[in-house]
């Protein structure tokens, strides 16, 4: 990882990003476009109103053979066996103490399982998979793009008409100009949209074809973060870590019924006792949305208190910033679960206790094509 900071890898579409006026930052070992000409706020608002194209080729893509379901189920609390062909599920690798090693997408492809993992965890995930699953194939020659926003369907359907019929979390293979695209109807913005894995050799032509549509702008990592924050979506390393259980992170919904107490394949994943215990008996902490009452953003690390003079914090902001669609600051925090859900809380910013309201998530309603 340190090597990555000093000498970050270039994305397959780096030249296109430079041509589009991207500013680059090192992220998880890659040189990533953080913003283009519209700026973070402009890109954020464009994605909520039209369609944004994100290059997320830094993420890890992995194929598992058709008989790997049971082996993968031993690593994730997800109902993998029950995943139908053409469908995708969200999940996470857990550790022995009930924390999370990474979160991932699991899709049922015609010939096995297709996984997408976080760039920062990619190498560790691959080692973890190889230690427990036979036939792990790391995909190294495909780019990954996301097209997100209310006009994403119309834009993609102009190139691939069959994509319009896909529902949220469908995962299908479609041809475009002789290339095979692995498309899922999902994303990380709270908007309708698609994530598209495609051969690197076809990526430049495909991205240009998408960008040729007036409804599309390129969107960088900056807006990707503010969009996911408003959508209440956890970021691995912030809301989910090896020390936070998925139940505390508000992600218990992803734990299949069949993997819970009383299910046919209950448990059998690392940390099952702790995680299922949190479901049965409650977790010590919970993830909440916070709306600061003033204008000052509260960023990760801000301590949260129950009063202006309380001595001990009851939690910490895990992600925070300005929500352009909300029109004010928003934050996610991990707090003591005993805190009353309607309690007004205080975040300490530059030595001042500023009032915050606990707010149901997401801050901005999801617009998935369910």
């Amino acid at each position, binding site marked *: 990882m340190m090597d990555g900071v000093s000498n970050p890898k270039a994305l397959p579409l780096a030249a296109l990003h430079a041509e589009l006026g991207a500013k680059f930052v090192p992220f998880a070992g890659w040189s990533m476009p953080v913003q283009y000409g519209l700026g973070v*706020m402009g890109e954020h608002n464009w994605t909520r109103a039209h369609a944004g194209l994100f290059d997320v080729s830094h993420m890890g893509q992995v194929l598992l053979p058709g008989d790997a379901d049971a082996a993968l189920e031993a690593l994730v609390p997800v109902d993998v066996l029950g995943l139908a062909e053409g469908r995708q599920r969200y999940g996470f690798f857990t550790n022995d103490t009930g924390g999370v090693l990474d979160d991932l997408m699991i899709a049922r492809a015609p010939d096995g399982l297709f996984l997408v993992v976080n760039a920062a965890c990619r190498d560790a995930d691959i080692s973890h998979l190889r230690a427990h699953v036979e036939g792990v194939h790391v995909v190294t020659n495909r780019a990954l793009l996301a097209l997100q926003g209310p006009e994403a369907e119309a834009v993609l359907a102009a190139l691939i008409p069959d994509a319009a019929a896909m529902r949220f979390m469908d995962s299908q293979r479609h041809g475009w100009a002789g290339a095979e695209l692995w498309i899922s109807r999902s994303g990380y913005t709270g908007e309708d949209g698609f994530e598209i894995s495609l051969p690197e050799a076809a990526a430049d032509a495909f991205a240009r074809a998408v960008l040729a549509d007036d409804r599309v702008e390129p969107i960088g990592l900056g807006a990707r973060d503010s969009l996911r924050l408003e959508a209440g979506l956890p970021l691995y390393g912030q809301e989910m870590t090896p020390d936070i259980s998925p139940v505390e992170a508000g992600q218990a919904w992803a734990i299949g019924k069949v993997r819970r107490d009383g299910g046919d394949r209950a448990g059998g994943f690392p940390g099952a006792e702790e995680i299922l215990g949190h479901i049965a008996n409650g977790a010590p902490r919970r993830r909440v949305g916070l709306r600061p009452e003033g204008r000052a*953003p509260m960023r990760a690390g801000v301590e949260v208190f129950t009063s202006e003079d309380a001595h001990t914090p009851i939690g910490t902001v895990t992600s925070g910033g*300005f929500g352009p669609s909300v029109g004010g*600051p928003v934050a996610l925090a991990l707090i003591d679960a005993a805190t009353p859900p309607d309690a007004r809380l205080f975040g300490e910013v530059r030595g001042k206790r500023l009032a915050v309201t606990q707010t149901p998530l997401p801050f901005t309603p999801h617009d998935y094509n369910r």
Partner: protein
Amino acid sequence: MKFTEDHEWLVADGDVITVGITQHASEQLGDVVFVELPELETQVAKGDEIVVIESVKAASDITAPLDGEIVEVNEALVNKPALVNEDPTGDAWFFKIKVEDPTSIDDFLTEDEYKDHIGE
């Protein structure tokens, strides 16, 4: 107009100096979403962090360029932080500071020297 190496601009009117941030600084910050101004009639020392600016990217400070007393602040920025991006060297001034020795402003960078400083 004079400039500091910290990307502030200064304009003197008698012994009162108006302070803002440069176009270059506003572009580097990105969209500004929050501004906290100093209190009126406070005595500040050169180098004190007296303004907080938060953009969509990060928090940063403006420091007092000289010793003096804050005699006016631009409340419009509190309600409309985006002014900092729209008109950094005009409407988006931050504060006015009354100084002992107005000639001390002469020690700051000229526009050409500032352009050299930012590599333009």
